[in-house]
């Protein structure tokens, strides 16, 4: 058997093995199917082989990034969590996964990246804290603009304004989706039978971040907490399949003791890094000014030459300037 394949994921926090829905789906599926993956938890998407997270580097050296592709790939490797499902149950899985992608996923994007209080106090802060030094200043807002663009295209209209209309619609859809999932789950432990399948992985991936994150505006969380069977479903999977994740203690212990404050208040060596970045920026500006400044100086002089006031000293001046330019 070849070496285990490498899976790149976002780091975990809030008691979750990873903070991103897509990563959670893949992680949960791999656990359910018992696929041996060597896990690389990172917080810099640029270190992933595809630039996206999650990413699976297969033994054939291809890189897969969509959760559905990764799951299909694992299935082909005989790590199949859906082995016991009947054809009809397989069809139902596909339908409920579509339901979540259409109704729940947009609301998740909105609540983490669109809702301004949540974004500033939790999402941006978390990413800024976990990303390496220069990236943390621009990558979170870059990801945000990507996510909002995705949301706009998913909804198919231009209503990303602040009127609150979009928010109501998204939350309405998401609440309905959660209710439907709750009705479908009923009092069962998993969606189909006694063992979890890919649908359970998708539901867990979408709901766990809602349940565990500590957002200032937690409308989705409040609704989910009222659906006892769904919130128990998530806690159960966390307990059974992700017990004592090393990141879980590490993540919470670094985050909880910190007081509420500004976005980048608790970066180690903050002053030093700020000072260094100012020096670097100044250096870059000065060198740029120096380079372009000399060029324009040259132009200025040649212009002066072209409109000679008095014709006598022109040749001497010309020679002198050429030497200066070369030196």
């Amino acid at each position, binding site marked *: 058997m070849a070496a285990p394949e490498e899976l790149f994921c976002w780091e975990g926090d809030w008691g979750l093995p990873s903070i991103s829905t897509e990563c959670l789906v893949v992680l949960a599926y791999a656990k359910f199917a018992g696929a041996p993956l060597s896990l690389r938890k990172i917080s810099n998407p640029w270190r992933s082989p595809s630039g996206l997270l999650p990413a699976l580097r297969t033994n054939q050296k291809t890189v897969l990034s969509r959760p559905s592709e990764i799951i299909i790939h694992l299935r082909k490797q005989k790590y199949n969590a859906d082995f016991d499902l009947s054809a009809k149950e397989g069809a139902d899985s596909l339908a409920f996964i579509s339901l979540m992608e259409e109704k729940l996923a947009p609301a998740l994007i909105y609540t983490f990246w669109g809702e301004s209080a949540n974004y500033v106090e939790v999402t941006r802060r978390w990413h800024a804290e976990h990303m390496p030094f220069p990236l943390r200043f621009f990558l979170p807002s870059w990801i945000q603009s990507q996510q909002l663009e995705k949301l706009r295209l998913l909804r198919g*209209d231009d209503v990303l304004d602040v009127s609150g209309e979009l928010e109501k619609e998204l939350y309405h859809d998401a609440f309905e989706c959660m209710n439907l999932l709750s009705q479908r789950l009923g009092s069962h432990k998993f969606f189909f039978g006694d063992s979890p399948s890919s649908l359970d992985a998708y539901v867990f991936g979408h709901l766990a971040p809602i349940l565990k994150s500590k957002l200032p505006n937690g409308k989705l969380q409040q609704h989910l907490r009222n659906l006892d069977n769904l919130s128990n479903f998530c806690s159960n999977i966390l307990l059974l399949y992700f017990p004592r994740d090393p990141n879980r203690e590490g993540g919470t212990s670094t985050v909880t003791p910190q007081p509420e404050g500004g976005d980048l208040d608790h970066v180690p060596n903050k002053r030093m890094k700020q000072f260094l970045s100012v020096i670097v920026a100044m250096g870059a500006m000065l060198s740029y000014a120096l380079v372009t400044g000399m060029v324009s100086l040259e132009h200025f002089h040649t212009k002066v030459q072209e409109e000679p006031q008095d014709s006598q000293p022109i040749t001497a001046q010309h020679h002198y300037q050429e030497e200066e330019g070369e030196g």
Partner: protein
Amino acid sequence: MSLATEAFMSQIAAAEPWPENATLYQPLREDQILLSDCASSLAVQAFLRMCGLPVQVVCRANAEYMSPSGKIPFIHVGNQVVSELGPIVQFTKAKGHSLSAGLDDVQRAEMKAYMELVNNMLLTAELYVQWCDDATATEISRPRYSSPYSWPLNNILAFQKQWEVRRKMNAIGWGGKTLEKVYEDVSQCFQALSQRLGTQTYFFAKQPTELDALVFGHLFTILTTRLTNNELAERIKSYSNLLSFCRRIEQTYFEGKHS
């Protein structure tokens, strides 16, 4: 449609019965309409026929711009305008016409899930084939879409639409898919629908629901529309129960209209 208008509408709607002069607007049937729009429009017509509500179909070249959500089709009932199947189902429900009232909670959840499956996979695949497959886009979609307009507006509008659809495909991760992969996904969707339908008359036993209308709209349109190749239609034909399902609804609700 916004929630506020939805709430407002359901209050108003309940008071007024369904009028005789309700109209459904769609793009020109012969020269302009595209596969995905035609499917959505047929789904709404099938739904209204299943409810027994009369509606007159009107073709307008600018239907897309008349629609409140920019999507096709939309219906004009009394003094209200509602677009797309989901809101239309809500609207008729407020007027006391519902096809899914007899379902229990789990069935209703499954029905909604399957409707999203059709929207998520089948509708997206139709858009992909129309606008991202170069042969289809050049030979069919762009000329048809822009047929009511003169040069240079026709090119501008068609490219604008294509650009928008392609960006959406990239955003949902379909941008990197090959046509073959899309056909595979569609097959997967057909298989799921076929499994769910089994040997039943309709998806949920004896009575049709909005899911039946939606599935019929898409399958029938795919079967009867000629594209640059008929791979999509071929893939339905391997599921005999879906074919007889289409024929059954056509005979029951569209007798003498399409035949």
